[in-house]
């Protein structure tokens, strides 16, 4: 499954016109201990680059942006009870939401794993 990354430190794993979105390991390390996550419920329309979820660490609240536009099919309910999954498994069990892409061409501007690695090293 192709994996893409944004400059706002979200990842998106794509399969056909479906995808899973989360935040990167770099992002969770920067945030520190995650204590609250709010994910969008199924049916929410999200727009590329706009706020789609909220993640709060002990010290601050941050927005999570939708890497692409689409309709949410599932929010990760496990994060409500165990928000620390974002720290322990950011690119696995700590995923935020799944969606149906409305325009797969929006993926074109995103980075691949190698590009993201270089981007983070440049920060």
């Amino acid at each position, binding site marked *: 499954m192709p994996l893409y990354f944004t400059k706002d430190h979200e990842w998106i794993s794509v399969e056909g016109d479906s995808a899973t979105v989360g935040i990167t390991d770099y992002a969770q390390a920067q945030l*520190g*201990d995650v*204590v609250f996550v709010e994910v969008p419920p199924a049916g929410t329309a999200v727009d590329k680059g706009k706020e789609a979820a*909220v993640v*709060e660490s*002990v*010290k601050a*609240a941050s927005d999570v942006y939708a890497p692409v536009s689409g309709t949410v099919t599932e929010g990760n309910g496990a994060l*409500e009870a165990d928000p620390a999954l974002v720290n322990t498994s950011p690119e696995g069990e700590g995923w935020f939401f799944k969606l149906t892409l409305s325009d797969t061409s929006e993926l074109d501007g995103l980075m691949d794993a190698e590009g993201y690695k270089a981007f983070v090293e440049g920060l």
Partner: protein
Amino acid sequence: MSEEIQIIPDSLLPLDAWHREHGARMVSFAGYEMPIQYEGIIAEHLWTRQHAGLFDVSHMGQLKLSGEGLDVALEALLPADVKGLGEGRMRYSLLLAENGGILDDLMLARLPGGTIYMVVNGATKWDDIGHLHEYLPEEITLNHMDEQALVALQGPEAVTALARLVPGVEALTFMTAGLFDWSGTPLWISRSGYTGEDGFEISVPGDEVERLAVALCEQPEVKPIGLGARDSLRLEAGLPLYGHDLDPETTPIEADLGFALSKRRREEGGFPGAERILRERTEGALFKRVGLLVEGRQPVREGAVVIGGGRVTSGGFSPSLERPIAMAFVPAAAIPGSTLQIEQRGKIFTATVSPMPFVPHCYHR
């Protein structure tokens, strides 16, 4: 000629390299690069509540005041009973403006020989020094001890760890202080802190602080703790943070710091803003600082609006209680147990007014 924008770089503390060696993430705070966290705020917070945490607070201003008429001169600027402050005793006090607003909160201690040692906030120290220079008479000498570092060792096992290095500190009680010798290095040690736990604050020459930090962290009880946990610990302890919960628009009564007005000073007055402050003390202020237990898991933060009047001034997640807590200024009629609604980023939160501290103080009295 074009105007150049000058970026003033942050100053480095004497322990800067030591923090980095210990894996600290450094942030800009009060004009210094400071450690926000090492292994993580929650782990550091809980370690301090259970064992002992070492905090570098060398950004704070350490001042020494001496001279003829010092006590009277200081009493004109703050509401503490300075005259009654005996050697080795400490007081929490407030630098007050003429309108009764709080310019800073600080600690006073009496050194041997009558000198006063004062610790003020890092972000306000330059303003404080200016204020003191302006209002203290010429006979008073103000020495900014910027060659001194300051560390805090906090937690139930702090006394065990420190007494191993500096025998005798165990005899100090809460809010007392003394001069100690640690293998040839003079240490001014007070039994005080900003976490609600038993612990010590240690003033040490800047060129000896790394040796002290190394020796303390060799003790099995001690780990270095960053500013992030310092903030969550003081919030649980109900202790206000200047620039957030206290500011020049806030009076000691609104801030629920009436205990900082010594009995004799309440009776005699004669401190800045005394008329207003003493009136608020008997008649009550319109607003007051309270604790809030916030429903749900999501924290409310500084700046969130209390519906019906008021604002959140500090808020976050309590690692000890595993729930969001906050401090807010609300109408004085809000008593413990009453519920309030708070608006943050378009969302409504419910909170219950709670007595503070949220986590009981464990001072060694």
